[in-house]
């Protein structure tokens, strides 16, 4: 962790800062042709009990590192998202988006965990195409048991 980074209160709504999200190197989450994540990389999880999560998991960059987010996920990509830009674009699109600090004990980056709520179709597309900046490209080679195949049109 960054020693001097302020730690938000649990549940606090964040309006500035940078978020990380790791993205698997599968064709449903990473477009090898463009070298960018797909819309599918920003969908919420429905857990093993059938509970749909209210938000999509990200990690607050000031409290973690790219290495910690990718720890144990060789081959995965990593993207960053500026919170201010995210909220501004959501406002333009009339989408209700919130970033909430939700630290956990899951994994090396767990203490930096955040949920981003309100990411529906238009915001998923905006993240994939515009908002998310690629920090680490996903590997086309098989990693963590998951292989990103060649693009549909080229296969």
């Amino acid at each position, binding site marked *: 962790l960054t020693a001097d980074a302020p730690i938000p209160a649990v549940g606090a709504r964040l309006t500035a800062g940078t978020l990380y999200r*790791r993205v*698997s190197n*599968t*064709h*449903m*989450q990473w*477009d090898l042709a*463009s070298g960018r994540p797909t*819309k*599918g990389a920003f*969908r*919420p*999880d*429905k*857990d*093993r*009990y*059938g509970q*749909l*999560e209210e938000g999509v*998991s990200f990690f607050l960059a000031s409290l973690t590192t790219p290495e910690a987010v990718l720890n*144990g*996920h060789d081959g*995965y990509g990593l993207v960053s998202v500026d919170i201010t830009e995210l909220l501004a674009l959501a406002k333009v699109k009339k989408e209700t988006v919130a970033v909430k600090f939700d630290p956990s004990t899951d994994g090396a980056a767990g203490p930096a965990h955040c949920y981003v709520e309100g990411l529906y*179709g*238009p915001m998923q*597309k*905006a993240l994939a*195409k*515009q908002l998310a900046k690629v920090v680490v490209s996903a590997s086309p080679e*098989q990693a*963590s*048991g*998951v*292989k*990103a*195949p*060649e*693009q*549909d*049109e*080229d*296969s």
Partner: protein
Amino acid sequence: MVMTTAEKSAFANLVTPGQPLFDRIRAAFSHVMTSRSSAPPAVPVPTPEEAISIAKTYAQAVEQIYELGNLKPGWNSYKAGPIGEKAQKRAVDFLLPFHALVPSLPAPAIFPTSDGGVGMRWRMATKARGYLDLELIFFDGHGEYSFDFADDNDLLAEGRISDAPSFLTDVRKHLSPYAAA
């Protein structure tokens, strides 16, 4: 996340995209995209050889849909659970009648979604605006579609899927302006 060899094999199979027949995809959808009359558009008829080849892609797609049931909780490195059985059935129940409606169209790429759905995607090249993606996702309770150009920042359209014929009507409605592209 560590996968067993069997899981790796299952995953590698299920993430294999659809067939490389995108000129035919464009041709298969073109009748839907170009017809502006109220009369039913003419449906391109594949040759017998093409029909067999395309039918195989649908058989493979159905197999991939059911293989999604092998995914273990956490398969996306976060908290994604299993893919719903009803979602799988809903996807198959859509796909086969859809194939009958548009017999010259190869099967879509199949993929799981982190919210328990079965995804399908057709990607086709357009002359003017690059690749157009038609994406469908089936959940236990309903189905959704979205259309977007790969290079655009916004979705072109999104909506609910009731059945294959209604979906084709929606394709026609949303994509007719781009028929010449």
